[in-house]
C-alpha cells in the first residue's frame, strides 16, 4: 500500500532565456509514493494555480521513457539517482519523507534555458542533419533479406540506437560534451553494412558539427552513468577510431593534396 511523503522542493525559476533565474522553495505535502516524479510536479503545479501563482514549466511528453523530452537535474544528477531511468519513470517511492529535492534544468552552454526547467536542445538535431542518416531515398531499397546481418552486429547497432536524445549525457558531463549522443548514432549507422558507403564522411561531419556546439570529451564517463538507456562508453572509442580514419580514408580529401 502506498505511503505519503512531505517534501521540500528547491526549483529553478527563470522567466525566459535572457532573464535572470533564481531558486524558489516549495513545500510538497502529502505526495503518494506511487506518484511518478512528474506527477509530483503536476500536483505542485495544480496547487500553485489554486494559489494564483504561475506554475513551473518542465519538459515532458510520453511519460514512458522513450520520447526523450523530459529531463531535469535532481539533486545535481541528470534524471536523478536511479540508474538507467528517465525522469518520467522515476517514482516517488525512491525518495524519503522529509527529503529536500533540488530541481534544475539541464546545465550546458549549448542548451539555453527557454523557461524554468525547459531548455533548447536543438544542437542535437544539427548533428543528425549533417550525417546521422543512411542515404536511401524512398523507393531505392532492395529486399530486406538480401543482405543478412549477423545477429551480434544488429544487436550492437540496436544497443547504440536505443538513445532517446534527451541530452542527459551533455548535462552530466563536466565539459558539456555530446560525445555519447553523437557516438551512439555514429556507431548505430557505421556498424551496419548499410552504413558503410558514408561511414567516414558521417564520422567526420558529425564530430565536427558536434564540436561547434559542445565541449570536449575527457573520458569522465559521467554521461554513460546518467544515460537513461545506459548507452556504453565504448561507442565513443569506436567513433574516435572512425573519426581519425576519416582523415585518411575520406575520398573527398584524396585528390586535394
Amino acid at each position: 500500500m502506498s505511503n505519503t511523503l512531505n517534501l521540500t522542493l528547491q526549483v529553478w525559476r527563470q522567466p525566459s532565456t535572457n532573464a535572470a533565474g533564481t531558486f524558489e522553495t516549495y513545500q510538497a505535502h502529502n505526495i503518494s509514493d506511487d506518484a511518478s516524479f512528474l506527477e509530483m510536479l503536476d500536483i505542485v503545479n495544480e496547487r500553485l494555480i489554486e494559489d494564483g501563482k504561475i506554475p513551473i514549466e518542465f519538459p515532458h511528453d510520453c511519460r514512458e521513457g522513450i520520447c526523450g523530452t523530459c529531463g531535469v537535474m535532481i539533486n545535481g544528477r541528470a534524471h536523478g539517482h536511479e540508474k538507467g531511468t528517465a525522469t518520467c519513470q522515476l517514482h516517488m517511492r525512491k525518495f524519503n519523507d522529509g527529503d529536500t529535492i533540488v530541481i534544475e534544468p539541464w546545465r550546458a552552454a549549448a542548451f539555453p534555458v527557454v523557461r524554468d526547467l525547459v531548455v533548447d536542445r536543438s544542437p542535437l538535431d544539427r548533428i543528425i542533419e549533417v550525417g546521422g542518416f543512411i542515404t536511401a531515398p524512398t523507393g531505392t531499397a532492395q529486399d530486406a533479406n538480401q543482405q543478412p546481418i549477423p545477429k551480434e552486429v544488429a544487436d550492437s547497432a540496436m544497443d547504440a540506437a536505443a538513445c532517446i536524445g534527451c541530452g542527459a549525457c551533455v548535462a552530466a558531463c563536466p565539459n558539456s560534451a555530446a560525445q555519447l549522443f553523437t557516438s551512439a548514432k555514429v556507431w548505430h549507422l557505421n556498424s551496419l553494412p548499410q552504413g558503410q558507403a558514408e561511414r567516414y564522411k558521417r564520422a567526420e561531419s558529425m564530430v565536427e558539427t558536434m564540436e561547434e556546439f559542445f565541449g570536449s570529451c575527457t573520458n569522465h564517463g559521467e554521461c554513460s552513468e546518467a544515460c537513461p538507456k545506459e548507452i556504453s562508453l565504448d561507442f565513443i572509442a569506436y567513433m574516435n577510431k572512425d573519426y581519425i580514419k576519416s582523415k585518411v580514408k575520406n575520398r573527398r580529401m584524396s585528390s586535394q593534396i
Partner: protein
Amino acid sequence: MLPDAGIPEGPIADKWDSHKFNVNLVNPANKRKFKVLIVGTGLAGASAAATMAELGYDVEVFTFHDSPRRAHSIAAQGGINAAKNYRNDGDSVYRLFYDTVKGGDYRSREANVYRLAEVSVNIIDQMTAQGVPFAREYGGLLDNRSFGGAQVSRTFYARGQTGQQLLIGAYQQMMRQVGLGKIKLHTRMEMLDLVVKDGSAQGIVCRNLTTGDVTSHSGHAVVLATGGYSNVFYLSTNAMASNVTAAWRAHRKGAYFANPCYTQIHPTCIPVSDDFQSKLTLMSESLRNDGRIWVPRDRDDNRLPQNIPEPERYYYLEEKYPAFGNLVPRDVASRNAKTVVDQGYGVGPAKNGVYLDFADVIQRDGRDVVEEKYGNLLQMYERITGEDPYEMPMRIYPAVHYTMGGLWVDYNLMTTIPGCYAAGEANFSDHGANRLGASALMQGLSDGYFVLPTTISNYLADKLGTQPLSTDDEVFQKAERDVVDRVQEFLSIGGTKSPEYFHRELGKLVWEYIGMARNENGLEKAISEIRALRDEFWKDLRVLGTKDTLNSSIEKAGRVSDFFELAELMARDALTREESCGGHFREESQTEEGEALRQDDSFAHVSAWEWHDMDTPQTEHREALEFEYVKLTQRSYK
C-alpha cells in the same frame, strides 16, 4: 454531399497500380515550384516530408515538439506487420488484406486496405535500408513474431522499441533533407487554424510556443499528419501533448470528421493506481504471445497469485476462444477483461486488473529468453508498480490507445477540403472499427512513404504556374486575429479552475459513457453533461501568466477546448450507430454470448460529419461500404 472516394476501377490487386498510372504527374523540374506544408513529424509526417523533398517539392514541416524526433509514434512497442511471408506460413498480401478488413469488423474500405497490405512489403525494405536495427536470427535474416488477430507470423520488430526505431529512421531521412536545405523545419510551432479560400486549402496559422508569435504560412497543399485523439479520455496511453486541435480546426473549416466513435481500447496496460495519475502505460500486445491471462476463480481469493493452484485459475480467454486463446483481437480481449472485472474477479489493490502471467514461458524457455524478448517492457512495469514481473504475474487492464476515426479522406488521402490531406492516425481510412496490432506503424509509413507522395501530384498538377496565396490576404489576417483573440480569451476568463481540471473531468465523462460499452441513455447523458462542463470551462477557466513566453497552460486550454467539441461529436456518432462493431460496443446490440453484434443491413457505412457552427449540430453523410472480396461474417475467434 460527400465527394466520391475515387476508388479505382478493376480487380482489387490492380487498383493501386492502375491508379498510379492514371494520376496527373508533375514533372521533376516543376516539383520545386510547389510548396507543401506538412504538420506533424510522426511516422506519417516525417516519411511524407522526406519523400516529397527527395522528389523535389518545396517542403515546410511544423511540429509543436522541441525536436521532430519526439512524436508519439516513438512509443509504439511491439512491431510492424508486412506480408513478406518470410516464415513460409501461408502469408500473402491477400491474407494481410483479409485479416485487416476482418479485424476492423468490416467497416473499412477494401481498396484502401488492399493498398496498405501491398505496400507493407516495401516499408520493411525501405526501413531496413535506412538502417533500422530490426531483430534478426543467428543466420542474419529478419526475425518475426506473431500478433493478435492473425494466425501467421508477420510482425517485424526491434526489441520492444519498434516505434522508436522506425520513427528515428524516418526522422533521420527527413533531417538529411533539412541539412540539404530541401525542407524548412519549424519546431515548437503549433498549428491553430487551417486557412481556406474559394473552397481549397491555402495554408495554416501557427503559434510559436516559445514566443507566442502568431504567424501565417501559405502553400499549394497542406498535409495534416497530426495523430489521433485518445487524449479526449484524459487517461490514455498517448503522450501528454497529443491532441486533436489541428484536425479539429480543419473540421471546423469544412473537413468532414469520420467515425469519431471508433476508439480502440488496448487490452494490456498497467491499471490506474490513483487520482493523480496523469497517463496510462501500455505493455505491448506482443506480451500476449507468451503471457497467459487469468483471474482467480474465487472472487475473494486473497492469496498471492503464484500460490493459487492451476485448477483455481480462470484462463478466460483460453477457455472461451480455444483457436486464438490469448491472441484474440484487441477489442475482444479488452471487453472480456472488463467483463471479468465488472463481475468482481478483478485483482490488485483496487480490484481493477487481471493477471498476465509469464511463469509458464519462464519455466519452458528460461528467464534469459524472456528477458531478451521483453526485457525493457518488464523493467518498465517494475519501475511503475514496484512489483517484479519475473516473480509475480503482471496486473493489466484495458486503456484507450488509438483512434480509428479521423478526418474523412478519399483514396488519394485528400479530405473534403481540396488541397488538405490527412495521413496516419489523423485520417479514418484503413482500420475500420478496430485496428489490429502492429498495423498503426504500417499505415503511418504507408501513407507517408508511398501513398501521399504519389497521389498529391494529382491535385498539384493543375496548379502549375500559380503562386501560393499571399499571407497578407484577408483570409490569413482574419485567421490570425481569431487565434490571437482565442488565446487572449483564455487569459482573460479569470476563473478558478485549471485546464488540467477540466480535462480530467471531461475524461471521466468520456470514459464512463463513451468508453468500452455504450448505450442510448448514457450517450444522451454524455452530451448534456459535456455541454454543461464546456459552459463551465468558458466561465471558470484559470490560465495564469502571459502569452508571450512558453506557457503550457495556454497550450492545454486550447487543446481541451477542442476536446470538448470532439467529445460531443463522438457521443452523437456513437448514438447514431445503433450496432456494435469493433471498438464500438452498443449494449443494445450484442449476441447471446455477449459478443459485438453488427447490423450490416443498416450500418455498413462510414459516417462522415459536416461542421456548421457552434449552435448547429453537425450533419451526418454516409459513404456505403461495398465488399466484393471479403465475405462479411460474424467475427469468431473461437
